[in-house]
């Protein structure tokens, strides 16, 4: 089975296989295209959140259970910025619309980077290399962050304004695709390509990849790995906040429970993809996104359980995930 799979592209063929099976099960081409687009868009947003978590783990051997706090804060900050810029959003000019949207995403991302810096200094730094306390402390930080969120924004759901040019759907023949999903898909792709180039074509990327492989060796060659740590932690947190901002626009109604719901999906993605690898995160995110949308359409009650089953199946087949960068 492995040999046959390798011939068609290895584990990267899995989303395609999934899509083909779903096509057979759904039967209607237009529904299938809509669902696939929704799944890909969702996958891309989850990828934003998951890649940071995965990279932080790969480089620093730190699993941040508080990662989803950045997602929630990103979502709520974006919602606040969008609400403040409501006039621009409703305006008839695509330029103003886009400026407002970009301002919201930029604000969330900047907050993510800053908060990530503080988080690394205060919470994570004292407990490097101590997994038990790491899990406990980041979990405690998650509790505190969620309570802060409740104290600042309150417990009621908040409506998120969507820019005028991204409302409605694009209709081709009898296929309808929400335009926000296309935007999410494009943004995710841009970020993935940027990350790919940063990791594979720049000097810092080289150091990060080397650090994932063997931290001590990079250190002994004279590089300041702690600075690298901070940089990666900030970038990962910023990505999570960006994902949260995108998710806020996608959901159009957000509650403080959003972080917890997404954390589970993000964890499943990281487990499926394999810890520490960007490609793995992308693969896992797309698999989970597609799976969620197909199953939600075919068997609505099984939506979240399906991800769990997917995770179990992958773990039985490959205990370290599909594309792990770090073993064990």
């Amino acid at each position, binding site marked *: 089975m492995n040999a046959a799979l390798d011939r068609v592209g290895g584990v990267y063929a899995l989303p395609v296989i999934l899509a083909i099976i779903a096509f057979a099960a759904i039967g209607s081409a237009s529904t299938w295209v809509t669902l696939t687009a929704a799944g890909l868009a969702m996958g891309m947003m989850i990828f934003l959140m998951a890649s940071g978590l995965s990279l932080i783990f790969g480089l620093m051997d730190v699993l941040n259970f508080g990662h989803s706090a950045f997602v929630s804060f990103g979502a709520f900050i974006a919602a606040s910025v969008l609400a403040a810029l409501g006039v621009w959003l409703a305006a008839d000019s695509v330029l103003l619309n886009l400026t407002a949207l970009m301002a919201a995403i930029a604000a969330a991302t900047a907050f993510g980077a800053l908060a990530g810096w503080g988080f690394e200094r205060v919470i994570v730094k004292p407990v490097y290399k101590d997994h038990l306390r790491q899990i406990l*402390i980041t979990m405690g930080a998650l509790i505190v962050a969620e*309570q802060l969120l409740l*104290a600042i924004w309150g417990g009621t759901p908040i409506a998120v304004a969507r820019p005028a040019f991204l409302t409605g759907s694009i209709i081709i023949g009898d296929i309808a695709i929400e335009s926000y999903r296309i935007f999410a898909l494009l943004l995710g792709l841009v970020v993935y390509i940027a990350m790919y180039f940063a990791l594979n074509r720049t000097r810092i990327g080289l150091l990060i990849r080397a650090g994932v492989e063997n931290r001590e060796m990079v250190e002994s060659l004279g590089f300041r790995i702690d600075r690298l740590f901070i940089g990666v932690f900030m970038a990962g947190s910023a990505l999570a906040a960006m994902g949260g901002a995108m998710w806020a626009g996608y959901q159009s109604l957000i509650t403080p429970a959003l972080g917890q719901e997404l954390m589970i999906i993000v*964890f499943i993605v990281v487990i499926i993809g394999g810890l520490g690898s960007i490609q793995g995160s992308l693969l896992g995110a797309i698999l989970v996104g597609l799976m969620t949308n197909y199953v939600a359409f075919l068997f609505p009650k099984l939506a*979240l359980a399906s991800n769990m089953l997917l995770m179990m199946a992958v773990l*039985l087949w490959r*205990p370290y995930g599909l594309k792990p960068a770090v073993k*064990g």
Partner: protein
Amino acid sequence: MSVSSIPATPARRIPVGRMAVYAIVFGIGLCLAFAPFLFKDVRAAEVAARICIFIVLVASYDLLIGYTGIVSFAHTMFFGLGAYGAAIALKAWGPGWDAILIGGGAGVLAALVLAVLIGLLSLRVKAIFFAMVTLAAASVMLVLASQLSDITGGEDGFTYQAPRLFSPAFKLFEDADGKVLRLFEVPLNGKVAAYYFVFLSSFVLFLVMMRIVASPMGTVLQAIRENEMRAEAIGYKVVAYRTAIFCIAAVIAALIGVVRAVWLKYTGPEVALSFHIMIDILLMVVIGGMGTIIGAVIGVVVMSLAQFYLKDLMQVAADATSGFPLLPDLLNPDRWLLWLGVLFILLVYFFPAGIAGTLMKKGSVR
């Protein structure tokens, strides 16, 4: 008879801290044993029963986190399986011991099977990976419980009746007039019987756990926590031991879940499955002291009292600061978890051994 002021060997020193911990735990145990006669209002009985149940739950979690170094977030899942098993059977077949036995048994069995599956599947890999897998499994169980509302009552949960022995109208002992017998002014009715059912089951389960950690197996578990490679090299099958203790902890959690379902006569996600319970357990085990088992007693009591009084304190603080921006929101009694979270982080930093662990080191031979 030497009167030397310097002890000949450090081993002669009296372990003051250890004695203090045992004394505190003994005191708490006495209070719990006579709770119906010491605290006479209804609310106190609820709190005492909750403390008993949580002591077992937290101690069983301590078997994992403190003794073996496994971080699991699925402990409430097992607790909930036991509770739901008993509750569903009690609702379907009416109040009877057979319902508790069969339903609770099914719940405990389900917990055991799930524990074996999760254990064998993911205990081979790193602690962090295991934590993630259990978190995912627990949240899926929570979603299932709220979605299968035909069986589980959804978000609201459901109520049912406990066996007649535990109803307040039941007379344990009658006096000459056929009225319920009173002891120290307390009527010996079904409520007292229910409390002692909770207390005795908790006590037995707690003793079982004390026995487990004192057994050779307990020592092996500590060896695995301290140095996994070395334990494996000596010849202990690490995965087998980890899976075994994970299953034992799961079964104990499920059993105490059954007890909780019988005592509360209500089961729902909020009292049996929710993530808040998991956070409570984590806080209690860390506050009490990981790797001590009896730390669980102290942790649960401190947390329960804190939950009670912290809210009052915060209300006062919130009223005092009502003129400032944001501060009243932060000090609102609903945000008590915020301050417990901060306390939790500080504890993990500065007193990772918790109250019991820190005290026990005081004046000990080491």
